[in-house]
């Protein structure tokens, strides 16, 4: 026990010593899901962050200072993420990047707020920006912004009146489910079957069978990547002919890779996609693929954009000041023409929510096809 106390003490000393050296660098902390259930999302996000940092450093850094990127592993554990955010703040980070999982962000954003620390998150849960936290900023708009677009599409274009909802019974899935349910109510869409599923569920036979025997005329899927793919595979096997729609995840390249031909026909409303007909995004995706050997996804783009948000806003205010950073970013719009790292025109409101154009996509023969570009709302 004593030995460990000393260890802790020694560790703290070495850490504060490290902070003292940081004269010509600026510290940037990325707290992400590098292990645990969220590792798939967090690791890709972190790679996006790393790539942006390297680009910026090669280009002279921020206000002449090189970025010193420090990674913190939340282990996909909200409590641990809170500790890591605290640690990043203790170690003097300028701005905080992360986390991706909403369940973690909801917790650690309190710590960032208490410390007046701007935090740029990859979470898309509606609750994040509903808490009047003046230091939280998104890199992708919340589900409550995307889902009305999707629900309207389901009702008006697909003509669905009775929708089956399949969702992951986690903080993430529950957020999407609730947001969709309230939109559906407004639009007069009837949710006929409501199916919560387990995290990391492998067997979707019962869920698909239940939808099949219902009177649903469309399916809304709000699951993470592997589960989406498993659902699509099972739906294909049981010959579920209904139009299947989801958010970014369902029509993402990862799900297409996993589900194979079963993914064909899946509809998605995506905020960010490497398939977007936008040169900056396509260049970023190509660079990413070259650098890491696998394809970028929306999480990579979010991480990438997050770092550039730090660069552009800081250069706008001309100094490393956290309070000014947060104040400036509220109500700010950045256009991609003069800020290429932001990739697409984007605006942030006073809650840190962002708006940006988005895309409706359909999976056709194993690739994502953009069927419509929807304006920012």
């Amino acid at each position, binding site marked *: *026990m004593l030995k460990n106390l000393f260890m802790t003490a020694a560790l703290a000393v070495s850490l504060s010593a490290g902070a003292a050296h940081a004269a010509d660098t600026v510290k940037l902390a990325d707290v992400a899901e590098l292990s645990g259930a969220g590792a798939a999302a967090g690791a890709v996000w972190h790679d996006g962050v790393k790539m942006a940092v390297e680009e910026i450093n090669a280009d002279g850094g921020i206000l002449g200072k090189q970025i010193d990127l420090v990674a913190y592993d939340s282990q996909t554990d909200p*409590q641990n993420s809170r500790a890591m955010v605290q640690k990043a703040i203790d170690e003097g980070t300028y701005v905080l990047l992360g986390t991706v999982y909403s369940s973690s962000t909801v917790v650690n954003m*309190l710590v960032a707020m208490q410390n007046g620390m701007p935090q740029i998150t990859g979470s898309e849960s509606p609750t994040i920006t509903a808490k009047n936290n003046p230091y939280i900023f998104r890199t992708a708009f919340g589900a409550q912004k995307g889902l009305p677009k999707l629900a309207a599409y389901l009702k008006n274009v697909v003509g669905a009146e009775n929708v089956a909802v399949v969702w992951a019974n986690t903080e993430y899935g529950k957020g999407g489910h609730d947001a969709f349910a309230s939109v559906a109510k407004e639009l007069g869409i009837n949710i006929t079957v409501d199916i919560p599923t387990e995290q990391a569920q492998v067997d979707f036979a019962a869920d698909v069978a239940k939808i099949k025997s219902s009177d649903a005329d469309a399916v809304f899927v709000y699951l993470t990547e592997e589960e989406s793919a498993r659902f699509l595979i099972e739906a294909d096997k049981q010959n579920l002919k209904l139009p299947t729609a989801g958010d970014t995840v369902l029509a993402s390249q990862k799900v297409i890779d996993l589900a194979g031909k079963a993914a064909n026909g899946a509809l998605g409303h995506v905020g960010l996609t490497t398939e977007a007909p936008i040169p900056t995004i396509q260049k970023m995706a190509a660079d990413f693929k070259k650098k890491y050997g696998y394809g970028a996804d929306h999480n990579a783009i979010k991480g990438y954009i997050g770092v550039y948000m730090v660069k552009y806003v800081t250069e706008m205010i001309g100094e490393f000041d956290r309070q000014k950073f947060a104040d400036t970013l509220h109500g700010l719009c950045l256009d991609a023409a003069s800020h290429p790292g932001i990739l697409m025109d984007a605006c942030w409101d006073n809650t840190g929510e962002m708006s940006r154009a988005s895309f409706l996509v359909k999976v056709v023969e194993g690739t994502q096809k953009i069927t419509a570009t929807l304006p920012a709302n």
Partner: protein
Amino acid sequence: MTPKNIIFAIVAVGLLIIAPLGQGNYITYVLCSWLLFSIAAMGLNLTLGYAGQVSLAQASFMGIGAYITALMTLNGIHWILAMPCAVAATFFVGLVLGYPALRVQHHFLAFVTLAFNTLVFLAFRNEEWLTGGSFGLVGMPRPDFWVFSTMKQLPFYYFTLVCFLISAAAFWWIVHSPWGRAFKALRENPIRANSVGVDTRRMTLLAFAIGSAFGGLAGALMTPLVQFIEPGSFALVHSLKLLLMVVVGGAGFFFGPILGAAIVILMPEVLRFTEGYYLIIYALLVIVLMVYSPTGLMGLGGKVITRFRPQREVRKDMVQGAQL
């Protein structure tokens, strides 16, 4: 207590008092979480290490304690009233979980408690009207004691430390009382214990109940520390983590779980330079430790001491420890 023990205890408490001074909030937070996991691990050590009853449900008791405390403090009831309710509730739930132990032992008991933990997790997640479901509960206040506010990290540490010291003293007292002797007897030879008048049924239930109550207290501390609780924090994997703390530290030793909690909580820090590989290294170290010293680090320490001072022969039965 021998004079040597008293001096040791005073030095240890002194170190605990100065430990967070001059440290950042993060280190203080980690120390708080070490103390509270030590309390939970101590409870499991009573059930498992002393009384020999396998429980893979300690995290669920932390959860029950944490949710009760959260719901009460969110409704304006002071922590000092909420905590006893949490402890009492976990005591009684622990008592109920003890009943299967009267029928089955060893691995069967492990599986019953494991299933219990998952059931509790499902209830936390699904009973949204009460527990907030997968969104969890947020914004629980940290308690004030007249002029002493625990809102800031350092005062909260001392608040946690006081709870820890009271728990440790209570634990020490229990395991050195005739009850402690009866618990050990239950672990070593329940049939013989029964035949010398130990009411093994009652002691088994008590071992579960008391161990669980410690878990409940740890949960009651976790609520104001993290100020956010969600079902995932009390899932099965956290019970396994607590089991790891107890066994890696040394089951059946007073300091075992405290040491084990320190290792489990601080290990990611120490191994951070290895980046993504720390869990791999950690897992390997645990396997090697178990192969070399099944009695955990306390046993390992004992081995080293006997190697240098071989007055007492090492006994075969020493290595046995609590058995599943």
